[in-house]
């Protein structure tokens, strides 16, 4: 029983990592940007939701939609302000990483001011808190929500990217801008829509993470590290890879935490990251588009 419950715990937190990782991966595979500001989008997704709940007082589902939208718009603005100039000037990887650090620092301070740097949480009653108990295994409704939502969203993203014309266009841009132009795709539109999509998914992951607990302006950084581990393990450029990477991390963490030692859980996670980087250069499920060695 205990182990089953723990596995479910792992899957639920993992599904949140997974969603973040997918958001992270979209940006990387389309814009070749390792966006360190991605974690802040998650924080803001949660923040916008919080303000929608407390200031406007709309129901949770609506607040969440507002939060997701806010995060998506934020991501687009950040992309156009910070990364678009770099793309135009053709300043590569390092430049983008540094720029994303800039965005990260600035936005985190904004979040700190908005929250007075104190812990906040969704007001009571706004989200379902009860837990369902099935044969001695108790599952939180928030966990059910997290797992089902991310399953739906990730599938949707997968279908959008790999089964639709828009997705094909987006991936074409990611693969080779110039040839994309030749086949009549406007790279900028595609990049903006990629940023929008990634921001939305990331924001949702943030909302689900803090749902039912308190959070503060640095919450997103945790997701950043775990999500980064997830994408590395799952492989960039592959939606399903990143997703499974996230779930894997979640389960591995939970298991090591409850059956080995929580003290070393980060060492285990990121040790795994190194192993994958070195011995599975494309991630466990990565695509050939991204060769790392």
């Amino acid at each position: 029983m205990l182990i089953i419950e723990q596995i479910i715990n792992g899957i639920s937190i993992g599904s949140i990592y997974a969603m973040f990782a997918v958001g992270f991966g979209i940006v990387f595979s389309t814009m070749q940007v390792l966006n360190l500001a991605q974690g802040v989008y998650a924080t803001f997704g949660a923040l916008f939701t919080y303000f929608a709940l407390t200031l406007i007082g709309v129901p949770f589902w609506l607040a969440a939609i507002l939060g997701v939208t806010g995060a998506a718009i934020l991501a687009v603005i950040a992309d156009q302000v910070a990364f678009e100039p770099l793309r135009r000037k053709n300043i590569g990887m390092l430049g983008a990483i540094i720029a994303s650090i800039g965005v990260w620092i600035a936005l985190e301070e904004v979040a700190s001011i908005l929250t007075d740097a104190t812990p906040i949480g969704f007001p009571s009653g706004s989200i379902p808190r009860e837990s369902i108990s099935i044969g001695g295994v108790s599952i939180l409704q928030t966990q059910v929500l997290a797992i089902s939502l991310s399953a739906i969203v990730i599938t949707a993203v997968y279908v959008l990217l790999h089964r639709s014309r828009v997705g094909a266009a987006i991936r074409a841009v990611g693969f080779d801008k110039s040839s994309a132009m030749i086949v009549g795709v406007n790279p900028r539109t595609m990049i903006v829509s990629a940023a929008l999509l990634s921001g939305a998914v990331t924001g949702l992951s943030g909302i689900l993470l803090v749902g039912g607990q308190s959070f503060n302006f640095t919450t997103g950084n945790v997701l950043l590290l775990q999500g980064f581990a997830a994408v590395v393990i799952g492989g960039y450029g592959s939606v399903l890879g990143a997703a499974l990477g996230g779930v894997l991390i979640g389960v591995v963490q939970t298991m090591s935490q409850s059956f080995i030692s929580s003290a070393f859980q980060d060492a285990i996670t990121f040790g795994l990251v190194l192993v994958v980087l070195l011995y599975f250069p494309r991630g466990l499920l990565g695509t050939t588009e991204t060769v790392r060695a």
Partner: protein
Amino acid sequence: MKSKRSLHSLTGRKRSRTAIVGLAAALSMVLVTGCGSTDSDTSTAAPTETSTTEEAQSGRAINVGLLAAETGPLAGAGGAFLSGALIGQQLVNETGLIGNGNTINLVIQEASEDPARSATVAAQIAADEQNVGLVCCILSPVAGAVSAVANRDGLPVILYGATQPGLAQPPYIFRTTTMPQFANETLGRELSEETGLKSVAYIVMTDNEGIVSQSESFKAGFASAGVEDLGTVEIVAKQTNFASAATSAIALGAEAISISATQAEAVGMVAALYDKNYDGQIIGLETLTGVGVFDSNPDALDKVPFPVYFLPSEVNEAGQRFVDAYNAEYGTLPDSFAAQGFNAIWVMGAALAGAGVEPTRASLGESLNALTEVPGTIYGTVKFENGQMLAVESVKIVSYSKPDGVIVPWIAP
């Protein structure tokens, strides 16, 4: 009047506005210098504020440095400490605690609880002979960095927040932090006696020595009441997966679960246990106090006992004076961080009183070393042992009350 303004600009509520002002200031700054800095660790600092009050005319205004943390990860607590300290300055001067017409004048420098920044600013304060003492530090590493500077320059320091064991090192480093360790032990003992607790399990954040030592004191307390220890679940800072820790802890099947973690993690754990329908007694620790904590999770935090040294609703005369002054200034009741900030300044005042007509670092140091007990603090009469303040008598077991989130004495179910 200057003091009033400075006080206002420092209340948390006004922070956003200050931010805009600061922003403008910085912009002009950047325009001037044409270059700037990025450092996600060191943070912004308050303009040097020196507030003087009318009593100053008769005697001398004695400068005491204070490292503020209005920004950075601890801005929440930092603001409370600072607000309390400013009231401390106000009351020390109004009551003429120091005597000889002398008044205390806080030289406030923002250091955002960052070790490097704090060491730098401390060096600046230490370099000015006018500053006879320094009050600071919420985080233990910061306290360590500042202590190094202070020991070098022979500057007496009072630490008001850091809880790691062994930080108080006379002759220069003293600590008025009301050590949660003692409080936890008391809580453990009294709570078990009141409720006839049989067994308890522990959730401990293992990568924070201060917290670990707090959990030790809980264990000592419960053990002394003969409660059975059913095991410990470890968590780490920046924990995301509270649910699994909760599952493990609940699985230990204890009548009560005692949580030792820093604020965010403690709140998260309480919530997870609550959501997992844990039917036993959840026991918190002092980190559960603070602005916004209750609102962050009212359902879960209701009825979770935790120890505090200070409770606005149950105060002695000195405490009442503090509460009134604080309320008059900020329109809210002080939390235990504010109380610690206040008390640090009050003790500093008491020490200055014993430091002669013209206090110097040397005389203040001697006075602090000679200090064995201070009567009339908001914690009652407090004792000093090896530079550490003890106020065990004033420990209170409290919990948040629904719906308004006021902290009230805890009533055993």
